[in-house]
């Protein structure tokens, strides 16, 4: 149970990554709340729930760390003591992720296939309409590329998680909403300053965490070679 380890910076991205896609869900969830009063209460509820979830994360992290030790794998399930139950857990998680996969993939594929419209237009001519077949082709290509990347990066899961969290998670989850608040909500001058501070803090964290992660990743690769 060390206080601080040398790879501490990796956790910056991981901590942000934990909020995976929640930020994009907030607006739909807010809208999904039916009555006006409940709509008003939503933010408060959100705070409470998120706090509870993070508390659970902390609890889970500490408990599992203490029990499985320092060499706990990035994918916790592979560190479980061998046994039938552990195997079922691994299988369960695998199946669950297999099913979750298309859902997580979908938005990205949507954006990608729409963005590739000009490409279709140039390469294939015509209106460049994204038909089902073309969409499928784009999706397949993306998946194959991703799988190749995955094969290459199998052993660097922790760095990937950290990098994604730091480089994409921080701007999406922390910076942009705050900037938007300054722009759309006409806040008081004090609040504007606060927003600016938060944005700068976020930017600094993002740049620093990403850079350090990349550098240490690189160093790790060098070491392996």
């Amino acid at each position: 149970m060390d206080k601080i380890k040398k790879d501490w910076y990796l956790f910056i991205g991981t901590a942000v990554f934990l909020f995976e896609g929640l930020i994009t869900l907030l607006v739909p969830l807010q809208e999904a709340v039916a009555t006006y009063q409940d709509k008003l209460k939503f933010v408060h509820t959100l705070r409470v729930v998120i706090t509870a979830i993070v508390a659970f994360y902390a609890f889970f992290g500490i408990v599992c760390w203490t029990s499985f030790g320092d060499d706990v794998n990035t994918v916790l399930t592979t560190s479980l003591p061998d046994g039938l139950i552990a195997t079922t857990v691994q299988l369960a998680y695998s199946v669950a992720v297999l099913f979750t996969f298309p859902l997580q993939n979908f938005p990205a594929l949507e954006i990608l296939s729409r963005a590739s419209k000009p490409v279709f237009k140039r390469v294939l001519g015509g209106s460049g309409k994204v038909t089902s077949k073309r969409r499928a082709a784009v999706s397949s290509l993306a998946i194959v590329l991703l799988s190749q990347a995955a094969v290459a990066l199998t052993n660097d899961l922790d760095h990937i998680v950290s990098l994604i969290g730091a480089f994409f998670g921080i701007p999406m989850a922390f910076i942009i909403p705050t900037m938007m608040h300054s722009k759309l909500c006409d806040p008081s001058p004090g609040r504007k300053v606060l927003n600016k501070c938060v944005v700068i803090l976020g930017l600094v964290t993002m740049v620093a965490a990403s850079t350090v992660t990349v550098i240490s990743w690189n160093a790790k690769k060098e070491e392996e070679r």
Partner: protein
Amino acid sequence: MNKPTNTPPQPLHPFHNKTIAAGDSSASLKRDARRLARMFHRKCAREDEESSSSDASEGGGRESVGLLFSSNALSRSAANRRGGINHITTGTDGKVTTVGVRTKTKTKRERIHEAVRKMPFLKGSNLLVNEAYMSLVFGGDGEGEDDDDDDDDDDNTPYDYGLNLNDILVDDDYVAVNFNGNSPDSVSGMKKKKLTQEPNQHQHQRERQHQHQHQHQHQHQRQRQNQDQDQDQRQGQRQLHKRTQDPNRFAYSGNNSPRHTQYEALGDPDLDESDSENAGLLRKLHGYDSDSSSDDDDKVVDDPAHEVTGGGTLTAAIFGIIKGTVGPGVLYVPHGFATSGWAFAVPMLIFSLVMFIFSASNLVRCWWYERARFLGEDGDESYSASGLTVDYRAGEEEGLLGTNSQSHSNGDNHNGRKKRTFKSSYPALVLKAFGESGSNWVKVGIMMQQFGIVLIYFIFVPKNLHKVCLDLFDVDVPIKWLVFVMVLIELPLSWLKDIRRLASTNMFANFLILYGLLCCLGFAFLSVGEASDYSDDTGSNSTVVDDDSGERNLEVEVGQLSLFMLRRYPPGCLLTFYPNFSVWGYFFRPTI
């Protein structure tokens, strides 16, 4: 109920010359159906409001036979595939002219009869069916209809509303009913008669029920729209093509003022205070719409969301938040703790929590501001108009994939469909704040984030499966092959254009994740317990030992473990993953 005094000139009816098919898959038609539904919701909401505020019985009148018809019946027939209204065509004034009815019953007559009986609003109405002619009395017992929009000076007497149906076309499993709606005959054929059977209060209740049912079934409708596009649409399709060529089809577009001018230019017949039922219908509709923005905020349900989540309660939102957050990501936390040390990890978690709450509150506040702007900016009168305008423009730009393009939600399936009243999304808000390029950047961000998550999945699953193969079969399968297998599984899944189909499997996945989490915790507690049995000081050592003593842990019996978990995690924790299908349904609406 005293707004119509200053009604603006009537715009073209939104359902000006349209065909709306229950099973049609094209985005614009879906949108129309949704719009119908929305208007119906508004109407119901308003009527509810009226009924609560005053006993004004005239509020119970069905202003728009057509609207009720379409929204309720469309969704209903789509929901139970056995029959019902299949498509609805409207004339220039937005009035229903043709209704296609699909049934699966045996003889012609029975078919017609059953189809008509299925029309929910006809309950209890007079119905005459013979082989070539069907006439029915709209409104049934308790349903009054006002000619005029001025409810105030009405005599509070509901009366029946007669409409003749003729031109029934009967196909194999299809009945098309041509409404004689536009001819003056139908107006004159309207018979006024006092109604005594049903007090209006009941009427309201019934409408509310309709509303609820409708909400629940709307989703089915959508599903079905996607599923059997090509099936049994013969008649409908024909109608549809005819209509699609109609230049007036998209006459209703642009913003408020162009619409008015267009209306004038078209020289649409006087939609003034004449006793034309259509005018009354329109005025009522718009009168309603216009005041909905101003005063229904505090109690009226926001229809779209409501319809989607079924309940739309805070509880549902809580489940949504939890599901949106807790996934495989949890599993990386212990390793993160182990590599960074608790003295950094815990504060970092708290830091990101605070940051997240701050920015999430900001985001929600932005939403509120935009909502207020949207509802308020155009003033009361044009609220509905601008709402529709937004819908329309967005829809036209977007084409078939619908929804997720520029002004509205990007491709995040979770917030995949936004529109009707005030619908927004993260990228849509960004678009408002930073324009096109900002929104594009955010979309790229979302894309990269999702691809990153997917990439992680590509590592996560093979690693787990590798371990499984090692444990179960004692085979050391190369990760490469496992990734390949996973690609084979995921490729076809990625071709799906409608991931709502995966809703059920995803529910299953949630339970698997719950199971996994509980087991992980169970193992952790077991080994901590053992560790502390030896000594507290050597905690980390003994946990290392734990790995070696896998043999012993292997002995751990299932029963023991489950007892243990039950003790530690009372079944109450299952509630966290309570299968709230409706919220999931909300997430899985990519194309709408």
